[in-house]
């Protein structure tokens, strides 16, 4: 199974161009989407999830035209949006049963077992009888995960699924996702760059609607090896460095500024080589679009 996004463009009525001719090929396994806020990640995911029209371009899941045959896509889709609501006066169990029905699980007994298992998986077994309105943010998020995994989806799209989860829950979710994601396409967006490295076989970086990078995490880091240098400078000097180097990240530490730059060769001048991490790839890719000096 393969998802092919071809030259997808989308402009909102307020003039913001959310997607600019994005082309991607996504295979089975986990696929990470990285990008700053407002980069177009959610737009892309919503478009693949049949919730939004594109101005141009196409999306194909094998031979299935995603933009046209929405119902067929939805039958194999699991989707967890970034921000969603629930019916406050209904229990998680009832709600999941309802969703299971909509996902085509006709047998009541099967639904019951599946709902119970899913709730256990997301650690809501004890709270399944409670009304969704009483759920905390994290519990609600886990409920969202459960509904997205319902009904053997072949295409799972999860938009910042770990927001609001504590570290243990986050781990638990990723494990769950990997377990399920072996034979499916899982598209995952996140702000936590390291997560992509540990989880995803492929990833893409989007910024201001443009695809900045698409590839595997480790080779991308490989590319930067020996090209990342670091130095501790005074705060006041940052403008100088910004003008003279390709500055990719800054970090304030005890009044001084730790900067990382990208350079083909050792720039000298007090810079020391550093081991490249995925974050460097990320910042390096988006540096041309975004001012990364975060002072």
């Amino acid at each position, binding site marked *: 199974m393969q998802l092919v996004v071809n030259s997808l463009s989308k402009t909102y009525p307020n003039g913001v161009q959310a997607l600019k001719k994005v082309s991607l090929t996504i295979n089975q396994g986990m696929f990470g989407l990285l990008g700053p806020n407002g980069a177009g990640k959610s737009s892309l995911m919503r478009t693949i999830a049949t919730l939004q029209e594109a101005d141009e371009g196409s999306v194909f899941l094998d031979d299935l035209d995603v933009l046209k045959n929405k119902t067929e896509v939805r039958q194999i889709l699991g989707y967890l949006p970034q921000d969603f609501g629930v019916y406050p006066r209904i229990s998680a169990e009832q709600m999941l049963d*309802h969703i299971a029905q909509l996902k085509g699980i*006709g*047998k009541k007994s099967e639904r019951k077992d599946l709902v119970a298992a899913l709730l256990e*998986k997301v650690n809501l077994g004890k709270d399944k009888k409670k009304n969704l309105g009483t759920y905390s943010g994290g519990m609600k998020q886990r409920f969202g995960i459960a509904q997205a995994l319902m009904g053997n989806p072949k295409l799972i799209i999860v938009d910042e699924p770990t927001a609001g989860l*504590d570290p243990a829950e986050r781990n638990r979710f990723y*494990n769950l996702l990997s377990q399920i994601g072996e034979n499916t396409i899982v598209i995952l967006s996140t702000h936590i760059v390291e997560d992509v490295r540990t989880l995803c076989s492929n990833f893409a970086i989007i910024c201001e609607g443009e695809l900045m990078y698409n590839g595997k995490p480790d080779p991308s880091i490989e590319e930067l090896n020996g090209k990342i240098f670091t130095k501790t400078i005074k705060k006041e000097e940052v403008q100088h460095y910004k003008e003279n180097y390709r500055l990719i990240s800054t970090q304030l530490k005890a009044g001084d500024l730790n900067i990382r730059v990208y350079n083909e060769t050792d720039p000298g001048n007090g810079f020391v080589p550093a081991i490249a991490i995925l974050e460097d790839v990320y910042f390096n890719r988006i540096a041309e679009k975004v001012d990364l000096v975060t002072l």
Partner: protein
Amino acid sequence: MFWQIFIFEIKYRLKRPATYIYFLTFFLLSTICFAAGLIGVSEKIYYNSPFVDAAVFAFFSFFMLLVSSAVMGVPLYRDIDYNTKGYYLTYPITERGYFWGRYFGSFIFVILIATSIIFGVYLGTFLGPIFGWVPASRIGPNHLVYFLQPFLYLVIPNLFFTSSIFFGLVALTRNVKVIYTSSILLIIAYLLTNFLIRDIEKKDLIKILDPFALNTITLETRFYTPAEKNTLMIPITKLFLYNRLIWSSVGLVILLITYFNFSFKRFFNSDNLKKQIAIIGEDLPSYLTTLPAVTISFAGNYYRRIMFTLAKTEYLNIVRDVYFRVILLGGCVFLILDFWIGSPVYGVSNYPLTVNLMEYKSYDYMLFMFIIIVFYTGETIHRDKTTRFAIINDALPTPDWVLYGSKLLGLVMLAFVLATIPMILGILVQLLHGYTHFNMYVYFVELYAITFPQFIEMIMLSFAVHVLVNNKFGGHAVAIVIWVVMFVLRNFANMNYNLFFYSYAPNYMWSDMDGIGHTGIGVFWFNLYWTIFGYILLVIAAVFHNRGVVTSYKERLKIARQRFHGPIRIVAAILLFGFVVIGVYTYYNVSYINNYLSADEVELRSVAYEKTLKKFENIDQPKVTSLKIFSDIYPRQRKVIVKGLITLVNKADKPINTLHLDGTGLESYTVKYNDKNISADYPLLYERGKFNWFRSKRDTSKYRIYHLPIPLKPGDSAKVEVNSVVAYKGFTNDLTGTDIVYNGTFYAGGLPSIGYNPDNELASDEKRKKYKLPEKKDEYPPQTDKKGIETLLFNSNADLVTYDITVSTSADQMAIAPGVLDKQWKQNGRNYYHYVQNSPSVDLFFDILSARYATLKDNVTLYNKQQTGLEIYYHPAHATNLNRFVSAYKDGLQYYSLVYGPFQFKQMRLLEFPKYRAFAQSFPNTVSYAEGFGWSADFSDPDKFDYGYFVTAHELAHQWWGHQVVPNRTRGSNLISESLAEYTALILTQRKYGKDNMKRFLKQELDDYLRGRANETKKENVFINCNRPYEWYNKGSLILYGLQDLIGLDTLNKALREFKEAYAFHPNPPFPGSNDLYRYIDKHVPDSVKYYLDDTWKKITLYENKVLDSKVTPTGKKGEYKVDLTVSTRKMYADSAGNEKPAPTMNDYIDVGVFAADSKDKDGRTITNPIYLKKYKLTAGEHHISVIVKGTPVKAGIDPYVKLIDRIPDDNIKDL
């Protein structure tokens, strides 16, 4: 501390758009109300009179409880809602400052928003005349005090009361939702209470207990004349003042209780801050298991099943909603009350006939249902969006049609249930009344074939609007605006062309006699028309139905285009075709066949009639002297074919060259004059109706001027043959053609009338001015007018005539016309009847009826051994009250023939006709009552007004007053007919119930008179020139009753008999006028009472009688008491506009009475027990009266039976 919080609150409020929206809303509402003159007061009252200002202020301030709930609900709740309580409380603020600062900071805005009414009214009174929406003469002076007084005494206390309630509720419950529920409940409860107190006698109690003082001001000004309403502000005294003080204090007490119970700790210490325990421990087994395998299939009818499941969920979501239940409960409570009480006639309810219940349903229930449907359609569409679950739901595999269909289906289920409720509650109410003739056919047709489709139409419009607007509040706003615009256009702009008003259909009516009759046909076609339109809306909505995140209208259009293909195109085409076909057919019926005219056009036509034809008003025309009619009634076809052979005589002193005939209302007519066709002019051409494009450009009026071949010389006669057709084809825009129906035809002869009829002219001063017609002060000429004296009031075409009527009808029906039934036969499967009325001659005033009647026959032998047959023709199911009619006939015939002279006919009939028209009318030897009048009234309470007896007595009296003595056509002459009949009925009632039990009847007449003159649109004449029903029925009967009380019943009867002898059965002029009756009465009135006759007939006289003080002391003898009374009296004279002046002198006879406790007679009727009753001659001012009575006195008073006209009869009696 108070100030900082107060100022903060004000700044906060100033930034809220809601503040301005509320202000603007009420500003616009009041501007529009006044600028467009949307206030229902009589023509002589200024739109901005102090009375109207006060009433409008009170009304708006009541509805502003919605504003006060919205504004006062938030100030405390805000800190809970926005979760600011977490840090806000850490600031050094005091509870007192917080509470009062928030309260006053918000309350001041409630008041500021309320000032919008002042500005709105002020602006409205300026805009109205400028744009010509209201005549400048309807705008009086705008004194600042007219605004400030009601603002201070009505608006501020009302808002303070509601603000305190809502502020208190939030403070105590810590829940903001409770105020929305409670504001709706408060409105419902208040409207409900208003509804319930309609019949309560203790008006004083209502004046005090109405928290918004709406009833207080209505009751205080109930009998204000137009002149008084224009100049007097409602005095802030007594009960009105107490009312204001009481309810402001209640508000204050609520506020103080709230304050003393308020503490930060209690208010903010929420119990839902329970610690959430994070469960971190890994649960290994579940972690490792794989998910159970499931079978996923969308095959077969899976989606359809899903749709029904979803529809059920949608339905349950609605019915489980608290607000839904509150509104539904309100609707049901009103429905039960309406069913229970119905529409009483003289305070007497009908039995709960199914046909009546279905009418009462629309009083209140339908409004609640409308609110539910419009509101919950929006809620249903936006539910997923509101909870933000849509983003998940929209990505689920449910196809669009399932999502869309399930919402619709859920609403349809709701509509079905709401349509069923009236049947369940109706049957319940019928059972509780012990009434078991459930008419299930009526229930089913009404509820499932008319109401249910109407609900569906409402749903379809709201549904489409919400889908297209795609925003909940925007959708509600657009939907409500659509309905309000339609309502305003129909009710205030005189537009009612149903083809342009979504979901509107002609009015219709259920009748026991006629079922839904022909009135259902139009309803069916219009409902079909609008239902198809609704489906078209649904198709549009389906195409634009929104799923996922849609960003621009361009994109929606693109999606819509994608969706609009294949089957949906075909469906749309078929619907559109159907809509056009049904629309064309409906148009053909309404406009082409039936010549629809708008209300304005009807008015314009009467202007054209007057302007073109007025010149013919005084030309001489021949009069009918005998009439032979052959009339064939075809009830199923709603057609009557009439052949009239008329003898005309020239009774004028000049030859007559032309014959003017007006056949308005007839389908067609032809005329032969002495067996020859004669030529005619058509002097009046109307403009074509503005919607009737396919009719001829000029609409020829049926007013024709026939040229006589040889002039008809004075005294000569001619034979005229008229062949005419009265027929109704197809259906009309509204309920019409109710005289010829399937069962219960009741039509007025079907012949053209002769000459110009001034009754067709516009009467309203305002409208006459608008159309530049000359002022018309009085309908009839003065009593000295020669032509008036020579013309009869009820028909100017004839003096007294003889009839010979042959009428046929279908085999299942019986036809009745006035006169003796000479012959009856069957021919060609039809029933034929031949009626003759040749002795005596009667006035030309008759109707012909045909229906499937049951018959009751009886007879009575009068004192002079004359046998009189009694015949009642009634609907078989309406036999309950026949005995009341019969006993009134028997008592009346005996008594009237004894005192006024013999009864002139061989039989007296009473007939029932369908309730499309509501009146009772007396024709020669026939009285007709509409179905809703008495036939099915529930007279089981003996204290209720037995109007079955009373009104029958009245109508029977017309056989003497009206048909023996026929009044002429001059000013005030109708009192000969109506005042004498009503007075005679009072006397017959007195013979039945006794002199001391007449107060109930007299007070009814008094109330009707006072209410009538308070709503006068032109001017009130003195009685001898009376020009209004409230004078000739109510005032007339009252003053004649008062007169017989002073001069003796026998003396007055003697005068009336002499008058009758002088004028009865005059075949030729002069006919009597009110001055003639006055002359006969005057002869018998002694000098000591002349003042009364003059006061009542030639002046408008009002008394102010009241008991000021009373004291009872036992005299020491057993059962004997001394009663000391202080009474005051005053006499006022009013002019025709209602301005009053004290009478210069007064020394009048007035009753003073003392009463023991009421008792019951053997029938359970309440009996008044006077232990002292005597006439005193009293001058204006206070009087002390002491009397010794035997028996225990419980009440005493001045003019206790209200024989005199007194604006406040309630204070005439005082409990001791």
